[in-house]
């Protein structure tokens, strides 16, 4: 096969590719923040909430973890209009990513909560702290510190799986790449550059996440 690579086409369209990468970063960062909040809420509900809350949290986690991400996206974008809820492609994508991450991360956070020595919780109770106070001041930070590596991997995975949201017309990096390759007919060049951009974004997110670890846990001396 003699294929002649022509990368100059890619450089002409670099601003569009970078715009796509920017939306990927925005969607991923927002979904990470919102998803982590959802995960902590869920994990708290599952480990300390009343029974109906536990059931609800379990149902949510099992439903999301046992269905494909693509189908979840389609439901947010194509099925919600049936009940009169029209979400733009970006909003639907962000919602689907948040809900998806929330389920996976809540199991990770729950593992961290269970790893906190029981004696510490009992000590808090002996001091007269309420359940939420114990969770907030004693449990959550050491729990997050324990599972931080697993959480980071889940965050990166989320960023990479965000490429799927191009199917509902969200114009992130994969969407831009496939549009450009289909109009310029230079598929290899564009996919190579997109691969490089994804790699750079993964490394970038990893760097930000390690800095966050240092700022939140090490500097504050969480044990």
């Amino acid at each position: 096969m003699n294929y002649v690579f022509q990368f100059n086409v890619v450089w002409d369209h670099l601003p569009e590719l970078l715009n796509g990468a920017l939306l990927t970063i925005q969607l991923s960062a927002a979904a990470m923040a919102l998803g982590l909040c959802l995960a902590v809420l869920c994990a708290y509900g599952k480990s300390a909430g009343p029974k109906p809350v536990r059931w609800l949290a379990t149902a949510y986690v099992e439903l999301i973890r046992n269905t494909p991400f693509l189908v979840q996206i389609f439901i947010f974008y194509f099925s919600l209009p049936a009940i009169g809820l029209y979400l733009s492609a970006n909003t639907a994508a962000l919602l689907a990513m948040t809900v998806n991450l929330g389920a996976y991360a809540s199991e990770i956070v729950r593992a961290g909560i269970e790893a906190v020595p029981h004696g510490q919780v009992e000590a808090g109770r002996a001091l007269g702290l309420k359940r939420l106070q114990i969770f907030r001041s004693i449990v959550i930070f050491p729990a997050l510190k324990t599972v931080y590596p697993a959480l980071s991997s889940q965050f990166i995975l989320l960023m990479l799986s965000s490429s799927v949201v191009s199917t509902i017309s969200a114009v992130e990096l994969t969407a831009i790449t496939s549009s450009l390759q289909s109009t310029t007919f230079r598929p290899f060049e564009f996919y190579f550059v997109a691969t490089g951009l994804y790699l750079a974004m993964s490394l970038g997110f990893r760097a930000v996440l390690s800095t966050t670890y240092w700022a939140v846990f090490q500097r504050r001396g969480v044990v």
Partner: protein
Amino acid sequence: MKICLRLLTLALLVAVPALLVAHPVRAESTLDTILKEKKLRVVIDVANPPFGVLDKSGQPDGSDVAVARQMAKDMGVELEFVQVPTAGRISALLAGRADVTIASISVTSDRAKAVMFCNPNGALSIVILGPQSVAIKTPADLVDKRIGITRGTLEEAAVPKMAPQGTKIVWFDEIAATIQALLSGQVDAVAMTSFAGKTMEDGNPDKKIETKLTVTTAFYGPIVRHGDFDLRQWINTWIFLNTQNGTLAAIYKKYTGLDLPPLPVF
């Protein structure tokens, strides 16, 4: 012993220059490979009615599929389908995953920069369709409307050119997703072939979908990689023969319900 050595030297003196001036073997063409391996690999898109669909038993069907089957039969080789999404019809061919794409690829000069077109084997129109409630009578009415189109199609090339500034174009990867976007109300109108539009209209009578505008009419044909001249010539010969004997017209009529217009050649 001495004689043996002399004979060996003599043999080398004759043989080595003979090897050096031997004719270089011509690189095997794609057509040679197809005939040798008795297998024709064809890219098809089965999410594009009526050209490519999956029948009730999940087997590929449609006018493109029928053309590919007849072509392989006449060539006397086995047929292997390479199914791709609409946007991958050209890249799968360029990547060498198949020998030819038969997926209603309309002839455009931009596409000819990447692949070689064979003579057309059919014609299609790109139209804009929407529900009765959406008012589109002229291209100017497209302003502020959300128009769904599919990546890697003729409409992706044609619609942005005719749409006035302010039209909100929304891209999907497959025609199925574009249709779903119209049916769920995520877009106001969609652009696709008139045939795909008809399938959508017939399948969803309650949505009252109608054709609003005709964007362009085009001829489509099989494509091969740049340089595959002998395969292209074989396919052109096949198209010539099957235009003459009416096979192409019969396939077109069977799947689209229309008479095949006279096919130009180039």
